[in-house]
């Protein structure tokens, strides 16, 4: 079972935030509800070909920017082939948010 990353929605004005904030960027409220962000649109892709200090420093890692369906952008690790413009499914993992091209109807969230 996978868990979608979550975004915070302002209780007062419904502005979505990611990462979480202390205060709403629009109305300064500090009361939130949390919603899953199970998918988004792949915007940009960058391949990291060398990572200083990593055990497998020369193993390429692909990171990407995803515009979530709820609005906020997330930095993610791509775990399979995907290109800008693709719809991707998002998973919260212990090492950050992972994304892969959506191949089946997306779950509602958690």
């Amino acid at each position, binding site marked *: 079972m996978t868990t979608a990353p979550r975004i915070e929605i302002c209780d007062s004005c419904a502005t979505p935030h990611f*990462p979480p904030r202390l205060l709403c960027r629009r109305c300064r409220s500090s009361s939130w509800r949390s919603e899953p962000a199970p998918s988004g649109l792949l915007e940009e892709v960058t391949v990291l070909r060398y990572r200083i200090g990593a055990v497998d420093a020369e193993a390429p890692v692909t990171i990407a920017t995803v515009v979530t369906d709820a609005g*906020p*952008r997330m930095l993610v690790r791509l775990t399979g082939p995907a290109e800008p413009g693709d719809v991707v499914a998002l998973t919260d993992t212990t090492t950050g948010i992972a994304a892969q091209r959506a191949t089946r109807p997306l779950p509602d969230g958690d």
Partner: protein
Amino acid sequence: MVRVRAHTTIFNDDHQEGSGLSTGLRAVAPALWDAAGVGPADLDVLSIYDDYPAMVLVQLEDLGYIKEGEVARFVKERLSTRRLPINTSGGQLCAGQAGAAAGMHGPVEVVRQLRGRADDRQVPGAALGLAAGYGSFIYRHASCSGALVLEAT
């Protein structure tokens, strides 16, 4: 003596939703030049925060030194020829990014220039200088921009 002629700062103006290829300086530069009573062409020496070379060009564009789409020409005509005295100390790209002290690297060099104490790198007659900074990485790119226009009195 050196006097602060104008200063500005702005925090997280795009809420991390931008491309990262412009800074908050873009929004506050017009007010900065207005308050200083001078424009980009009037300054004798600049310190631009150089955590990465590309970010120097981004800030110069935001401050009005580079016209849209003319970065290559600017580098060729004004940087490689040294016609624009910028980061005359060598900047952080030479000195290293000294933690919390890094933000003062640029202002210190501009003050030295305006006091006429920049040794063999002295810009002759330097009377007006600018120090710009960019940092405080939040999520996708840095969030905080600031700039100082300084003058010798």
